[in-house]
């Protein structure tokens, strides 16, 4: 240990920009594009298919969630147990997810097992039988999940804010228990037919793939029928400010979810906004964390995040607080927003956020799986191929006045929608 011990950090160096990966777009023999990231650092492969939803299906979470669960749980040639056991023999995993705009399925395995795992993935996507027995079981499990989640203040605040945010738009999802209880197997078969079997997904592949390229192309051709692309969803606009509350007697905490608008007319605006939001509430040293957790101890955590879909964008703050601290927490959030609007951030704070984000960017690209996920998200949102380079350049050029103006534009407390439960 040096003597005297220095009270300031050793010199720091962030001059070296990371190597920014980009997907290479290739064409299948049938002319359809797929997006590839060859990466030899880890002996892994990840293949993802994203099925975009049209306006009819974006509002129907229950058939879609059930479908996602049922795929692979019984196919034309295998029982659910047999299909899953075969997947295990390849040491492979399938990730399945449904969000408001799309369904995504990913196969992850060691590259050496890709040839054995791909036929199983194909079988899951194209030959699942959706049996009545599996459906009944999955529906019962979903009802159980729903009821358990209903006991959580954070979930009730989420349902409340989502219901209000997307009212009168195809992204609205009616998440009442009675809707789930009315779900039929026919609904799920319809979803399978329209959202998967007759859709052509967007395909992404990363990792060590070269030896499997031909079989991969066959797989992608098989799961990509000629189909019209899904029509774009109508433009979403955030509704007027409102305070919503779901009462849950007996809970010792309240969940608080505050939402504000984030429409962008340019990439520059979006990048300024992202920087500003991190400074306000997006990292451990943010103003909201310092004030509300580290100075006042009202909460275990509070975070602001950008919420980005292709047809909607907004920001959201989430926290859980001691039951009697809701008004004080909201007061401090408004105070920190107004401070950011009125007063330019200091040079030191700007530098801290910039460096933190530069490090986060490099960290988010560590390893093939992280790279794949990051690039796939950006591609799905329609970001430019050189987005990561532009983002990195922006970090080193954004100034305090841009941040202040971005706060002025997006953080006006008069626009906030506040949903609470507890």
């Amino acid at each position: 240990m040096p003597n005297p011990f220095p009270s300031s950090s050793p010199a720091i160096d962030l001059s070296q920009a990371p190597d920014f990966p980009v997907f290479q777009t290739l064409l299948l023999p049938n002319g359809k594009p797929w997006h590839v990231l060859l990466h030899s650092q880890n002996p892994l492969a990840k293949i993802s298919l994203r099925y975009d939803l049209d306006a009819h299906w974006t509002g129907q979470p229950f058939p879609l969630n059930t479908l996602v669960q049922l795929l692979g749980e019984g196919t034309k040639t295998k029982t659910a147990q047999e299909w899953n056991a075969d997947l295990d023999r390849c040491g492979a995993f399938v990730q399945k997810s449904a969000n408001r705009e799309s369904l995504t399925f990913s196969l992850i395995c060691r590259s050496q097992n890709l040839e054995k795992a791909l036929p199983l993935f194909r079988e899951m996507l194209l030959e699942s039988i959706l049996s009545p027995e599996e459906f009944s079981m999955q529906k019962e499990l979903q009802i159980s999940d729903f009821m358990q989640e209903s006991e959580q203040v954070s979930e009730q605040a989420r349902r409340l804010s989502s219901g209000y945010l997307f009212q009168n738009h195809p992204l609205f999802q009616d998440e009442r228990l009675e809707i789930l209880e009315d779900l039929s197997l026919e609904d799920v078969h319809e979803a399978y037919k329209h959202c998967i079997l007759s859709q052509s997904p967007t395909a992404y592949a990363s990792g060590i793939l070269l030896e499997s390229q031909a079989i991969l192309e066959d797989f992608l051709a098989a799961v990509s029928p000629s189909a019209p692309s899904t029509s774009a969803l109508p433009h979403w606009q955030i509704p007027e400010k409102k305070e919503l509350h779901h009462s849950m007697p007996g809970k010792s905490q309240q969940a608080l979810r505050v939402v504000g608008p984030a429409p962008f007319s340019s990439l520059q605006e979006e990048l300024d906004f992202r920087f500003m939001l991190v400074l306000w509430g997006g990292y451990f040293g943010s103003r909201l964390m310092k004030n509300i957790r580290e100075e006042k101890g009202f909460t275990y955590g509070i975070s602001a995040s950008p919420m980005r879909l292709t047809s909607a964008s907004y920001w959201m703050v989430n926290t859980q607080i001691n039951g009697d601290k809701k008004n004080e927490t909201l007061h401090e959030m408004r105070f920190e927003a107004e401070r950011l609007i009125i007063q330019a951030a200091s040079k030191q704070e700007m530098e801290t956020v910039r460096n933190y984000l530069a490090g986060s960017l490099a960290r988010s690209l560590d390893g093939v799986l992280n790279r794949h996920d990051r690039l796939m998200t950006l591609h799905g949102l329609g970001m430019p191929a050189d987005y990561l380079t532009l983002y990195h350049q922006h970090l080193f050029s954004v100034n305090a006045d841009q941040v202040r103006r971005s706060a002025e534009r997006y953080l006006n407390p008069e626009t906030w929608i506040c949903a609470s439960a507890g």
Partner: protein
Amino acid sequence: MIPFPFERYTLGNGLKVLIQPDRQTPMVAVNLLYDVGARDENPQWTGLAHLLEHLMFEGSRHIPNYDQPLQLAGGINNAFTNNDLTNYYCVLPAANLSTALWLESDRMCNLSLSEHKVEVQRKVVVEEFRQRYLNQPYGDLLTLSRELSYTTHPYRWPTIGKNIEQIEQVPRQTIHEFYKEHYGPNRCTLVLSGNVNPDSALKEIEYWFGDLPAQAQKKSPLPVEPPQTQARIKQVKRAVPEHALWMGWHMPGRNHADFKALDLFSDALSGSAAGYTMDELIRKRGLLNQGGFYVSGSADPGQFLFSATLREGKNPEQVAAEIQSFLFEIAEHRLTQDDLTRATEKMATSNAFSDASVQNRALRLATAEWLGDAQTLNTEWEEYAQITVDDVRNAAHRYLNPENSSTLLYLSESNA
């Protein structure tokens, strides 16, 4: 398996150092695992190790703010505490390794514990307690199950603590004494994983940590849990939507010869959608909504565990009896070598995924070294691959008996 090359050193003051170079990443993970967890607490002041973990981010003698310099260097950090250990990590651009070492060396022996910081972190931890345990359905299940399973060993309370009052009332002096007793270079394993040169990294470590004084006090031996000879059962009623069932059987700690057989058995039962839990207990018998078997994986003798919520109309006591006989039926008659092979294959892939991240690699190395030898990461997969059905059957006979079990019937008031 992919070999896991690393260099190992011990400084004069006892600090264990492992360096795992990886030239393909621009990052480095700096992981410090301290040999202190909730098991080292006095029953009067439980939750102390975890509260102290929070306070470790509140500044040290020469550095009043831990987070800001690290963020300025492009880094992130976090920590966790469990019953056995407390683990801190930073991930940052490798060029800024010195900043992480500077921060860590100061807080290893020179933590500030100001009155104000202690009071604020008490409130934060109390909110964490509420958020994770009191305000969640089934939130007290962990506390109740530990109280039921252990009579003597400090695993009988959870890491967060037994109750909020102890966190609110623990004196600042007691926190300071706990820190002085348990933190120091010879209580820590420091791992670097990432884009570093082992020789120069070791020199840096020696520079920042080499003169720190070793912890003179020896660790107090922990009370040993006496063998359980009779089944224990407890029933509670709570405002939850469904009945839940929790069962635990005492089993050996991580370094015991039987640990891997039971670990692999829990994977064959519940580690996959093809496992016996999903196929038999959920799909065919319709007993559970969700849940399964797992092992606690603790250093001291731990538990083989089952936890689940039950389908509507199922009687928890009857399900508990069925689970006990199910375990024997599988171990005795139905488990195949193919089940174990599939579980092992899946484990290998999980590790390969995990090792794609420098942060996970550093944590896995630190944990393995703390348990005895990081080199086991290069050999354990083969050991798992050699486990036979007979090994599992013998281990099941030794440990998964009714008289060695604890059962918590967690009843829903609305379904009772």
